C-alpha cells in the first residue's frame, strides 16, 4: 500500500495545466479506471496502480494531491483503495462520482472472490489445496507485517510508540475486544498529539 518510492516524477506541468482547465470527467471514465484497477491490483500494489492511472495517465490529481489523498485514505477507516476511489471520485464528480468510483473498485473484485470462494467450497477439503492456502496465508501475513513495518518506521516519538504497543498487546496478545480499545486509545492519541505537537509544527 505504500509504494510511493516507486513513483516517477515526470509529466507534472501538463497535469497542473489540465487541472486548471477543470475538465468534467465522464462518469464512465471513472468507472472504467477503477474497474480495471479493482481487478488487476491487489493488496500491496494497489497504490502504485492507482498512481499510474490517476496521476500519470489521466491527470486527475497532481503528485501532491495524490499523496494527500493516499494519507487521508490510510488515516480514515475503510479499505485504502476504496477510500482513495471515493476521494478522487467525489472530488471530480461529487457524491455520485464517489459512489461510481467505489463501486468500480468493489463490484468486479466481489464477483471474482465469490468465484474463488465457490472453488474453495468444492476443493477446500483437498490436502493439496489446504497446503497451498497455507503457503498463501504465510505470504499474506508477511505482506501485513511489511505494511506494518513500513508504517511503524514513521513513528519515532515515545508516546505514539507506547500507544501503538498498547494496542498491539491488548488486541493481539491478550485478545481484548478491539472496539472499546480503539474508542479509548484513538481519541487519547489524537488529544496527546494535539497537546504535544501542535505549536511545534505550526
Amino acid at each position, binding site marked *: 500500500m505504500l509504494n510511493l518510492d516507486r513513483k516517477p516524477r515526470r509529466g507534472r506541468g501538463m497535469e497542473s495545466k489540465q487541472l486548471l482547465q477543470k475538465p468534467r470527467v465522464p462518469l464512465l471514465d471513472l468507472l472504467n479506471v477503477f474497474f480495471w484497477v479493482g481487478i488487476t491490483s491487489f493488496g500491496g*500494489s494497489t497504490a502504485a496502480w492507482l498512481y499510474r492511472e490517476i496521476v500519470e495517465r489521466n491527470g486527475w490529481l497532481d503528485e501532491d494531491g495524490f499523496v494527500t489523498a493516499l494519507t487521508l485514505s490510510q488515516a480514515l*477507516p475503510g479499505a485504502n483503495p476504496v*477510500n482513495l476511489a471515493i476521494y478522487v471520485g467525489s472530488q471530480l464528480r461529487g457524491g455520485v462520482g464517489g459512489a461510481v468510483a467505489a463501486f468500480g473498485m468493489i463490484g468486479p473484485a466481489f464477483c471474482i472472490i465469490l468465484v474463488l470462494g465457490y472453488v474453495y467450497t468444492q476443493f477446500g477439503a483437498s490436502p493439496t489445496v489446504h*497446503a497451498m492456502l497455507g*503457503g498463501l496465508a504465510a505470504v499474506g501475513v508477511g505482506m501485513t507485517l511489511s505494511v506494518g513495518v513500513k508504517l511503524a518506521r514513521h513513528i519515532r516519538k515515545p508516546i505514539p510508540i507506547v500507544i501503538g504497543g498498547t494496542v*498491539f498487546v491488548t*488486541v493481539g496478545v491478550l485478545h481484548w475486544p478491539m472496539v472499546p480499545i480503539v474508542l479509548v486509545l484513538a481519541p487519547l492519541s489524537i488529544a496527546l498529539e494535539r497537546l504535544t505537537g*501542535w505549536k511545534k509544527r505550526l
Partner: protein
Amino acid sequence: MTGDRLLGLLLVFAPLSLLSFGGGQAIIADMQHQTVDIHHWMSGPQFVDLFALSRAAPGPSTLIAALIGWQVAGFFGAVAATIAIYVPSSLAVYAAVRWWHASKDSPWRAVLQRGLAPVAVGLIFAGAVAVLQAAHVNALQIFTTVIVAGLLISTRIGVYTIMAVAALGFALLQLV
C-alpha cells in the same frame, strides 16, 4: 434462521467497518475472534483459508468479508457482509473528504493523521498475530512469513511471484 445469520453478519461487520483504521489489516484480529470464537461460524483453519484466498484475489483485502458472508449464509450473506463492511466507512470517508477540502488550513489535519497512525500500526501487528495463531502455524510457515516480509520491505519482487512460489512450494512439500 437465514435472517438471523444475515443480521448477525451486519452486526459484526458494520462496526468493524468504522474501526478499520489503516485498512483491512487492522480488523483481521477482531474478525477472526468474532467469526471463530464468538459466533462459531467457522473453524480457525477455515478462517485462515479464507484469509489466504482474500489475499490471493485482486481488489481490496477487506473482501474477506464477502467470503465469510458466503460461508455463513450463501450469496445473500456475501452481499450483506460486503455492504456492511464498505458502506459505513465509505459514508464516513465521504463526509471527511468534504470536510477536508473545506478546511484546508486547519492544524487538526496533521494532528488527526499523526494521532491515528500508532493505533493503526498496533492493529496491523495484532492482525498478523491473530492469523498466525488461528492457523496453528508450523515452523515453515513462520519462516516463510518472516522471509516474505523481509523481501517486501527491502526488495521490489512482485507479490504475485512470491505467492506463486509459496503456493507451489507448499503443495509440493505436502505431496512429498
